[in-house]
Protein backbone atom coordinates (compact mmCIF):
# COMPACT_ATOMS: atom_id res chain seq x y z
CA UNK A 1 0.00 0.00 0.00
CA UNK A 2 1.38 3.31 -1.04
CA UNK A 3 1.36 6.27 1.25
CA UNK A 4 -1.43 7.94 -0.82
CA UNK A 5 -3.79 4.97 -0.99
CA UNK A 6 -6.82 4.84 1.38
CA UNK A 7 -9.09 1.99 2.53
CA UNK A 8 -12.11 1.21 0.32
CA UNK A 9 -15.18 3.14 1.44
CA UNK A 10 -13.18 5.98 2.79
CA UNK A 11 -14.81 9.29 1.85
CA UNK A 12 -13.22 11.50 -0.71
CA UNK A 13 -13.88 14.45 1.49
CA UNK A 14 -14.37 14.47 5.23
CA UNK A 15 -15.23 17.68 7.04
CA UNK A 16 -15.81 18.58 10.66
CA UNK A 17 -17.97 21.44 11.98
CA UNK A 18 -19.39 22.25 8.59
CA UNK A 19 -21.50 25.26 7.71
CA UNK A 20 -22.95 25.79 4.26
CA UNK A 21 -25.21 28.22 2.45
CA UNK A 22 -27.00 27.94 -0.89
CA UNK A 23 -27.69 31.05 -2.89
CA UNK A 24 -30.13 31.43 -5.77
CA UNK A 25 -30.48 34.64 -7.73
CA UNK A 26 -28.79 36.55 -4.98
CA UNK A 27 -31.06 35.12 -2.31
CA UNK A 28 -30.02 32.64 0.35
CA UNK A 29 -32.51 29.82 -0.06
CA UNK A 30 -30.99 27.45 2.45
CA UNK A 31 -28.19 27.11 4.94
CA UNK A 32 -27.08 24.44 7.37
CA UNK A 33 -24.52 22.90 9.66
CA UNK A 34 -23.18 19.46 10.50
CA UNK A 35 -20.76 18.17 13.13
CA UNK A 36 -19.30 15.79 10.54
CA UNK A 37 -19.85 15.45 6.82
CA UNK A 38 -18.29 12.81 4.61
CA UNK A 39 -18.62 12.98 0.83
CA UNK A 40 -17.96 10.29 -1.71
CA UNK A 41 -17.78 11.25 -5.34
CA UNK A 42 -19.08 7.85 -6.39
CA UNK A 43 -22.83 8.36 -6.59
CA UNK A 44 -22.49 11.73 -4.94
CA UNK A 45 -23.08 10.13 -1.58
CA UNK A 46 -22.89 12.10 1.61
CA UNK A 47 -23.07 11.03 5.23
CA UNK A 48 -23.50 13.52 8.07
CA UNK A 49 -23.90 13.59 11.83
CA UNK A 50 -25.88 16.15 13.79
CA UNK A 51 -27.02 17.84 10.62
CA UNK A 52 -29.41 20.74 10.39
CA UNK A 53 -30.68 22.80 7.50
CA UNK A 54 -32.82 25.88 7.30
CA UNK A 55 -34.86 26.56 4.19
CA UNK A 56 -36.61 29.77 3.25
CA UNK A 57 -39.50 28.92 0.90
CA UNK A 58 -40.15 31.11 -2.10
CA UNK A 59 -43.13 33.42 -1.74
CA UNK A 60 -46.33 31.95 -3.14
CA UNK A 61 -45.34 28.35 -2.56
CA UNK A 62 -47.27 26.05 -0.28
CA UNK A 63 -44.65 26.37 2.42
CA UNK A 64 -44.43 30.15 2.35
CA UNK A 65 -46.98 30.60 5.11
CA UNK A 66 -44.71 28.75 7.52
CA UNK A 67 -41.84 31.23 7.16
CA UNK A 68 -38.45 29.55 7.35
CA UNK A 69 -38.25 25.80 8.11
CA UNK A 70 -35.41 24.27 10.07
CA UNK A 71 -34.74 20.52 9.88
CA UNK A 72 -32.36 18.65 12.13
CA UNK A 73 -31.40 15.01 12.67
CA UNK A 74 -28.59 13.08 14.40
CA UNK A 75 -27.87 11.10 11.24
CA UNK A 76 -28.31 11.97 7.59
CA UNK A 77 -27.35 9.98 4.51
CA UNK A 78 -28.02 10.92 0.92
CA UNK A 79 -27.23 10.68 -2.75
CA UNK A 80 -26.99 14.24 -3.96
CA UNK A 81 -27.07 13.40 -7.67
CA UNK A 82 -30.20 11.26 -7.26
CA UNK A 83 -31.87 13.75 -4.91
CA UNK A 84 -32.42 10.98 -2.42
CA UNK A 85 -31.72 10.82 1.30
CA UNK A 86 -32.60 9.46 4.71
CA UNK A 87 -32.53 11.09 8.14
CA UNK A 88 -32.97 9.16 11.35
CA UNK A 89 -32.42 9.11 15.06
CA UNK A 90 -35.17 11.68 15.66
CA UNK A 91 -35.94 14.09 12.86
CA UNK A 92 -37.15 17.50 14.02
CA UNK A 93 -38.74 20.35 12.15
CA UNK A 94 -39.44 23.79 13.50
CA UNK A 95 -40.79 26.73 11.56
CA UNK A 96 -40.66 30.47 11.90
CA UNK A 97 -44.41 30.49 12.49
CA UNK A 98 -44.12 28.25 15.53
CA UNK A 99 -44.82 24.79 14.17
CA UNK A 100 -42.95 21.81 15.60
CA UNK A 101 -42.91 18.30 14.13
CA UNK A 102 -40.95 15.18 14.96
CA UNK A 103 -40.58 11.69 13.59
CA UNK A 104 -38.01 8.96 14.17
CA UNK A 105 -37.04 8.52 10.55
CA UNK A 106 -37.77 10.29 7.28
CA UNK A 107 -36.88 9.57 3.67
CA UNK A 108 -36.54 12.03 0.84
CA UNK A 109 -37.03 10.80 -2.71
CA UNK A 110 -37.26 13.32 -5.48
CA UNK A 111 -40.14 15.62 -4.69
CA UNK A 112 -41.55 13.62 -1.80
CA UNK A 113 -40.73 13.23 1.87
CA UNK A 114 -42.15 10.19 3.61
CA UNK A 115 -41.98 8.60 7.01
CA UNK A 116 -43.20 5.22 8.15
CA UNK A 117 -42.71 6.04 11.80
CA UNK A 118 -44.96 7.99 14.13
CA UNK A 119 -45.23 11.70 13.47
CA UNK A 120 -46.22 14.38 15.92
CA UNK A 121 -46.83 17.98 14.94
CA UNK A 122 -48.18 20.98 16.73
CA UNK A 123 -48.47 24.61 15.91
CA UNK A 124 -50.80 27.58 16.08
CA UNK A 125 -54.21 26.11 16.76
CA UNK A 126 -53.46 22.47 16.11
CA UNK A 127 -51.88 19.39 17.65
CA UNK A 128 -51.82 16.26 15.47
CA UNK A 129 -50.32 12.79 15.43
CA UNK A 130 -50.03 10.27 12.64
CA UNK A 131 -48.54 6.85 12.04
CA UNK A 132 -46.84 7.97 8.86
CA UNK A 133 -46.12 10.99 6.69
CA UNK A 134 -46.25 11.71 2.99
CA UNK A 135 -45.46 15.27 1.90
CA UNK A 136 -44.51 17.03 -1.27
CA UNK A 137 -41.43 19.16 -0.85
CA UNK A 138 -43.10 22.13 -2.53
CA UNK A 139 -45.58 22.10 0.33
CA UNK A 140 -48.60 21.61 -1.91
CA UNK A 141 -49.70 18.61 0.11
CA UNK A 142 -48.77 17.34 3.56
CA UNK A 143 -50.42 14.08 4.56
CA UNK A 144 -50.51 12.07 7.75
CA UNK A 145 -51.30 8.46 6.88
CA UNK A 146 -51.99 5.06 8.45
CA UNK A 147 -54.18 6.65 11.09
CA UNK A 148 -54.20 10.19 12.39
CA UNK A 149 -55.70 12.04 15.31
CA UNK A 150 -55.44 15.44 16.85
CA UNK A 151 -57.13 18.56 18.11
CA UNK A 152 -58.06 21.93 16.70
CA UNK A 153 -58.44 24.79 19.10
CA UNK A 154 -61.73 26.60 18.75
CA UNK A 155 -62.69 29.88 20.24
CA UNK A 156 -65.85 30.60 22.17
CA UNK A 157 -69.21 30.76 20.46
CA UNK A 158 -70.65 33.91 18.98
Amino acid at each position, binding site marked *: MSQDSVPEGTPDLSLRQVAFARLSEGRMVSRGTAARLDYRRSGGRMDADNGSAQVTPEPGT*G*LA*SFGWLRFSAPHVQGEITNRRGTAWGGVDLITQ*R*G*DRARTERAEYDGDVVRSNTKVTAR*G*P*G*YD*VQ*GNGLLARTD*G*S*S*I*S*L*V*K*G*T*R*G*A*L*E*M*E*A*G*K
Partner: protein
Amino acid sequence: MIPLLLAAAALPPGPLQFRAEGMRYQPNERRILLDGDVHLDRQDLAVTSDHAVAETADPAKKAPPPPRGKKKKGNQPAQATLGGQEVERFTVDGKVHVVRGQRTADGEHGEMDVPQQTMILTGTPAQPPVVRDGQETLSGDRILMHLDSEDIDVTRPHVVLKRSLPVDDNQKQKPASPVRIEAQNLVVHKAARLAKFTDDVVVRRGDTVVKSPKMDAHYDQDGQLTLLQMRGGVDMRQGDRRAVGQSADYDAKARTLVLTGDPKVYDRGDVLFGDRIDLYLDSHEVKVDKAKGKLHPEIHKDEEAKLQ
Protein backbone atom coordinates in the same frame (compact mmCIF):
# COMPACT_ATOMS: atom_id res chain seq x y z
CA MET B 1 -89.04 14.44 19.41
CA ILE B 2 -89.14 18.16 18.96
CA PRO B 3 -89.37 18.85 22.69
CA LEU B 4 -86.28 16.78 23.34
CA LEU B 5 -84.57 18.64 20.56
CA LEU B 6 -85.22 21.67 22.68
CA ALA B 7 -83.72 20.14 25.78
CA ALA B 8 -79.94 20.03 25.45
CA ALA B 9 -77.54 22.81 26.37
CA ALA B 10 -75.85 25.18 23.95
CA LEU B 11 -72.57 24.03 22.47
CA PRO B 12 -69.79 25.21 24.79
CA PRO B 13 -66.37 26.38 23.61
CA GLY B 14 -63.51 23.89 23.53
CA PRO B 15 -61.09 22.07 21.25
CA LEU B 16 -62.32 20.00 18.34
CA GLN B 17 -60.79 16.54 18.55
CA PHE B 18 -60.52 14.47 15.41
CA ARG B 19 -59.25 11.15 14.18
CA ALA B 20 -59.23 9.52 10.76
CA GLU B 21 -57.35 7.05 8.62
CA GLY B 22 -55.58 9.85 6.81
CA MET B 23 -55.20 13.61 6.85
CA ARG B 24 -54.03 15.80 3.97
CA TYR B 25 -53.19 19.46 4.43
CA GLN B 26 -53.23 21.62 1.31
CA PRO B 27 -51.85 25.05 2.28
CA ASN B 28 -52.53 26.69 -1.09
CA GLU B 29 -56.17 25.65 -1.03
CA ARG B 30 -56.35 26.52 2.67
CA ARG B 31 -57.98 23.23 3.52
CA ILE B 32 -57.38 20.00 5.34
CA LEU B 33 -58.93 16.74 4.20
CA LEU B 34 -59.70 13.84 6.51
CA ASP B 35 -60.41 10.49 4.95
CA GLY B 36 -61.59 7.14 6.23
CA ASP B 37 -63.55 6.57 9.43
CA VAL B 38 -63.54 10.22 10.37
CA HIS B 39 -64.46 11.16 13.94
CA LEU B 40 -64.93 14.77 15.04
CA ASP B 41 -65.65 15.45 18.71
CA ARG B 42 -66.26 18.64 20.55
CA GLN B 43 -67.73 18.59 24.03
CA ASP B 44 -71.12 16.92 23.62
CA LEU B 45 -71.05 17.07 19.81
CA ALA B 46 -69.71 14.05 17.94
CA VAL B 47 -69.71 13.67 14.17
CA THR B 48 -68.62 10.63 12.18
CA SER B 49 -68.37 10.34 8.41
CA ASP B 50 -66.38 8.82 5.58
CA HIS B 51 -64.71 12.12 4.64
CA ALA B 52 -64.31 15.60 6.06
CA VAL B 53 -62.86 18.83 4.75
CA ALA B 54 -61.89 21.78 6.94
CA GLU B 55 -61.63 25.05 5.10
CA THR B 56 -59.65 27.91 6.55
CA ALA B 57 -60.41 31.58 6.10
CA ASP B 58 -58.52 33.56 3.50
CA PRO B 59 -56.21 35.84 5.52
CA ALA B 60 -56.34 38.41 2.72
CA LYS B 61 -60.10 38.69 3.09
CA LYS B 62 -60.03 39.02 6.84
CA ALA B 63 -61.39 42.19 8.35
CA PRO B 64 -58.74 44.73 9.34
CA PRO B 65 -57.74 44.81 12.99
CA PRO B 66 -59.58 47.23 15.28
CA PRO B 67 -58.13 50.72 15.62
CA ARG B 68 -55.24 51.10 18.02
CA GLY B 69 -56.33 51.33 21.62
CA LYS B 70 -59.58 49.46 21.07
CA LYS B 71 -59.54 46.06 22.66
CA LYS B 72 -61.23 43.03 21.19
CA LYS B 73 -64.64 42.73 22.75
CA GLY B 74 -66.63 39.63 23.60
CA ASN B 75 -69.32 38.12 21.39
CA GLN B 76 -66.86 37.61 18.58
CA PRO B 77 -67.74 34.96 15.97
CA ALA B 78 -66.59 31.49 16.91
CA GLN B 79 -63.40 30.48 15.14
CA ALA B 80 -61.31 27.36 14.96
CA THR B 81 -57.66 27.58 14.08
CA LEU B 82 -55.48 25.23 12.09
CA GLY B 83 -52.01 25.82 10.84
CA GLY B 84 -52.17 29.39 12.01
CA GLN B 85 -55.37 30.05 10.10
CA GLU B 86 -58.95 30.14 11.26
CA VAL B 87 -61.11 27.20 10.32
CA GLU B 88 -64.36 28.66 9.10
CA ARG B 89 -66.13 25.62 7.69
CA PHE B 90 -66.20 21.85 7.92
CA THR B 91 -67.79 19.70 5.27
CA VAL B 92 -68.51 16.06 6.03
CA ASP B 93 -69.57 13.48 3.48
CA GLY B 94 -70.65 9.86 3.44
CA LYS B 95 -72.62 8.18 6.21
CA VAL B 96 -72.71 11.33 8.32
CA HIS B 97 -73.79 10.59 11.89
CA VAL B 98 -74.21 13.32 14.46
CA VAL B 99 -74.63 12.80 18.19
CA ARG B 100 -75.43 15.64 20.54
CA GLY B 101 -76.73 14.83 23.96
CA GLN B 102 -79.66 12.46 23.51
CA ARG B 103 -80.19 13.57 19.95
CA THR B 104 -78.76 11.82 16.91
CA ALA B 105 -78.90 12.78 13.28
CA ASP B 106 -77.98 11.01 10.06
CA GLY B 107 -77.41 12.19 6.52
CA GLU B 108 -75.14 11.91 3.53
CA HIS B 109 -73.69 15.41 3.60
CA GLY B 110 -73.11 17.98 6.31
CA GLU B 111 -71.72 21.49 6.46
CA MET B 112 -70.60 23.04 9.71
CA ASP B 113 -70.23 26.81 9.63
CA VAL B 114 -67.95 27.69 12.54
CA PRO B 115 -68.55 31.47 12.68
CA GLN B 116 -72.30 31.00 12.38
CA GLN B 117 -72.34 27.96 14.69
CA THR B 118 -74.65 25.98 12.45
CA MET B 119 -74.62 22.58 10.88
CA ILE B 120 -76.68 21.77 7.79
CA LEU B 121 -77.47 18.15 7.11
CA THR B 122 -78.78 16.87 3.78
CA GLY B 123 -79.32 13.45 2.28
CA THR B 124 -80.62 11.92 -0.90
CA PRO B 125 -84.18 11.77 -2.25
CA ALA B 126 -84.31 8.12 -1.25
CA GLN B 127 -82.67 8.72 2.10
CA PRO B 128 -83.33 12.21 3.49
CA PRO B 129 -81.57 13.46 6.61
CA VAL B 130 -83.12 12.35 9.87
CA VAL B 131 -82.97 13.60 13.45
CA ARG B 132 -83.89 11.15 16.18
CA ASP B 133 -84.57 11.53 19.84
CA GLY B 134 -85.65 8.32 21.51
CA GLN B 135 -88.52 6.94 19.47
CA GLU B 136 -89.30 10.24 17.83
CA THR B 137 -87.98 11.09 14.40
CA LEU B 138 -87.88 14.17 12.22
CA SER B 139 -86.79 14.19 8.63
CA GLY B 140 -86.84 16.67 5.80
CA ASP B 141 -85.00 17.79 2.72
CA ARG B 142 -82.55 19.87 4.74
CA ILE B 143 -81.97 20.09 8.48
CA LEU B 144 -80.17 23.09 9.94
CA MET B 145 -78.96 22.61 13.50
CA HIS B 146 -77.96 25.65 15.53
CA LEU B 147 -74.88 24.69 17.55
CA ASP B 148 -75.14 27.62 19.95
CA SER B 149 -78.69 26.64 20.91
CA GLU B 150 -81.05 23.73 20.39
CA ASP B 151 -83.05 25.41 17.65
CA ILE B 152 -83.54 23.54 14.40
CA ASP B 153 -84.76 24.71 10.99
CA VAL B 154 -86.09 22.04 8.65
CA THR B 155 -86.94 22.44 4.99
CA ARG B 156 -89.89 20.31 3.89
CA PRO B 157 -90.10 18.45 7.20
CA HIS B 158 -91.71 15.10 7.76
CA VAL B 159 -92.47 14.71 11.44
CA VAL B 160 -93.89 11.79 13.34
CA LEU B 161 -95.13 12.79 16.78
CA LYS B 162 -95.51 9.48 18.56
CA ARG B 163 -95.37 11.09 21.95
CA SER B 164 -98.23 13.37 21.07
CA LEU B 165 -100.64 10.56 21.84
CA PRO B 166 -100.73 9.63 25.51
CA VAL B 167 -102.42 6.32 26.12
CA ASP B 168 -105.35 6.48 28.51
CA ASP B 169 -104.85 3.63 30.94
CA ASN B 170 -108.51 3.68 31.97
CA GLN B 171 -109.75 3.08 28.47
CA LYS B 172 -107.36 0.13 27.94
CA GLN B 173 -107.52 0.76 24.23
CA LYS B 174 -104.65 0.11 21.91
CA PRO B 175 -102.39 3.11 21.40
CA ALA B 176 -103.74 5.55 18.84
CA SER B 177 -101.91 6.15 15.57
CA PRO B 178 -99.20 8.80 15.58
CA VAL B 179 -99.54 12.33 14.29
CA ARG B 180 -97.57 12.90 11.07
CA ILE B 181 -96.80 16.40 9.91
CA GLU B 182 -95.49 17.65 6.59
CA ALA B 183 -94.73 21.23 5.63
CA GLN B 184 -92.38 23.30 3.54
CA ASN B 185 -90.53 24.67 6.54
CA LEU B 186 -90.14 24.01 10.24
CA VAL B 187 -88.38 26.11 12.86
CA VAL B 188 -87.98 24.69 16.35
CA HIS B 189 -87.57 27.25 19.16
CA LYS B 190 -86.14 25.80 22.30
CA ALA B 191 -86.94 28.48 24.82
CA ALA B 192 -90.58 28.77 23.81
CA ARG B 193 -91.11 24.98 23.52
CA LEU B 194 -92.53 25.81 20.15
CA ALA B 195 -92.28 24.31 16.66
CA LYS B 196 -93.45 26.58 13.86
CA PHE B 197 -94.52 24.88 10.64
CA THR B 198 -95.12 27.09 7.63
CA ASP B 199 -96.26 26.70 4.02
CA ASP B 200 -98.46 23.80 2.98
CA VAL B 201 -98.80 22.21 6.40
CA VAL B 202 -100.43 18.78 6.35
CA VAL B 203 -101.26 16.93 9.57
CA ARG B 204 -102.26 13.27 9.38
CA ARG B 205 -103.55 11.12 12.19
CA GLY B 206 -105.28 7.88 11.32
CA ASP B 207 -107.98 8.72 8.76
CA THR B 208 -107.84 12.44 9.62
CA VAL B 209 -106.02 14.89 7.36
CA VAL B 210 -105.80 18.59 8.23
CA LYS B 211 -104.30 21.19 5.89
CA SER B 212 -103.34 24.72 6.80
CA PRO B 213 -100.88 27.40 5.63
CA LYS B 214 -99.17 27.57 9.01
CA MET B 215 -99.22 25.80 12.31
CA ASP B 216 -97.60 26.20 15.74
CA ALA B 217 -97.00 23.11 17.87
CA HIS B 218 -96.65 23.66 21.62
CA TYR B 219 -95.09 21.25 24.10
CA ASP B 220 -94.95 20.91 27.83
CA GLN B 221 -91.76 20.59 29.87
CA ASP B 222 -91.92 16.80 29.61
CA GLY B 223 -91.88 16.96 25.86
CA GLN B 224 -95.52 16.07 25.32
CA LEU B 225 -97.45 17.82 22.60
CA THR B 226 -100.15 19.98 24.17
CA LEU B 227 -101.58 22.12 21.41
CA LEU B 228 -101.54 22.53 17.65
CA GLN B 229 -102.62 25.95 16.44
CA MET B 230 -103.47 26.21 12.74
CA ARG B 231 -104.10 29.58 11.18
CA GLY B 232 -104.81 31.15 7.84
CA GLY B 233 -107.52 28.77 6.66
CA VAL B 234 -107.96 25.19 7.82
CA ASP B 235 -109.35 22.25 5.87
CA MET B 236 -109.94 18.97 7.71
CA ARG B 237 -111.09 15.69 6.21
CA GLN B 238 -112.00 12.56 8.12
CA GLY B 239 -113.61 9.89 6.02
CA ASP B 240 -116.71 11.42 4.42
CA ARG B 241 -116.57 14.37 6.77
CA ARG B 242 -115.00 17.68 5.89
CA ALA B 243 -114.63 20.73 8.14
CA VAL B 244 -113.27 24.17 7.31
CA GLY B 245 -112.59 27.36 9.21
CA GLN B 246 -110.17 30.23 9.43
CA SER B 247 -108.45 28.78 12.50
CA ALA B 248 -108.24 25.50 14.35
CA ASP B 249 -106.77 24.38 17.65
CA TYR B 250 -106.03 20.72 18.31
CA ASP B 251 -105.98 19.78 21.99
CA ALA B 252 -103.67 16.77 22.15
CA LYS B 253 -104.93 15.56 25.52
CA ALA B 254 -108.65 15.80 24.70
CA ARG B 255 -108.03 14.90 21.05
CA THR B 256 -110.42 17.54 19.92
CA LEU B 257 -110.16 19.93 17.02
CA VAL B 258 -111.85 23.29 17.60
CA LEU B 259 -112.63 25.28 14.47
CA THR B 260 -113.36 29.00 14.60
CA GLY B 261 -113.64 31.79 12.05
CA ASP B 262 -116.70 31.00 9.97
CA PRO B 263 -116.40 27.26 10.62
CA LYS B 264 -118.40 24.74 8.63
CA VAL B 265 -118.65 20.99 8.74
CA TYR B 266 -119.86 18.87 5.84
CA ASP B 267 -120.83 15.25 6.36
CA ARG B 268 -122.16 13.60 3.25
CA GLY B 269 -125.26 15.73 2.54
CA ASP B 270 -125.28 17.54 5.89
CA VAL B 271 -123.96 21.05 6.34
CA LEU B 272 -123.49 22.67 9.74
CA PHE B 273 -122.05 26.03 10.59
CA GLY B 274 -121.94 28.22 13.69
CA ASP B 275 -119.61 30.29 15.85
CA ARG B 276 -117.44 27.34 16.84
CA ILE B 277 -117.26 23.69 15.93
CA ASP B 278 -115.68 21.04 18.18
CA LEU B 279 -114.70 17.79 16.50
CA TYR B 280 -113.96 14.79 18.71
CA LEU B 281 -111.58 12.83 16.54
CA ASP B 282 -111.86 9.50 18.35
CA SER B 283 -115.64 9.34 18.72
CA HIS B 284 -116.43 11.34 15.57
CA GLU B 285 -118.86 13.44 17.61
CA VAL B 286 -119.46 17.05 16.56
CA LYS B 287 -120.48 19.95 18.78
CA VAL B 288 -121.55 23.22 17.15
CA ASP B 289 -122.14 26.51 18.99
CA LYS B 290 -125.08 28.51 17.64
CA ALA B 291 -125.60 25.89 15.01
CA LYS B 292 -127.34 26.41 11.71
CA GLY B 293 -127.45 24.18 8.72
CA LYS B 294 -129.15 21.46 6.77
CA LEU B 295 -129.40 17.89 7.94
CA HIS B 296 -130.50 14.86 5.93
CA PRO B 297 -131.04 12.07 8.47
CA GLU B 298 -132.06 9.60 5.79
CA ILE B 299 -128.56 9.72 4.36
CA HIS B 300 -127.17 8.41 7.63
CA LYS B 301 -129.47 5.43 8.04
CA ASP B 302 -126.72 3.09 6.96
CA GLU B 303 -124.56 4.45 9.79
CA GLU B 304 -127.30 3.76 12.34
CA ALA B 305 -127.57 0.22 11.03
CA LYS B 306 -123.86 -0.25 11.49
CA LEU B 307 -124.06 0.98 15.06
CA GLN B 308 -126.90 -1.45 15.85
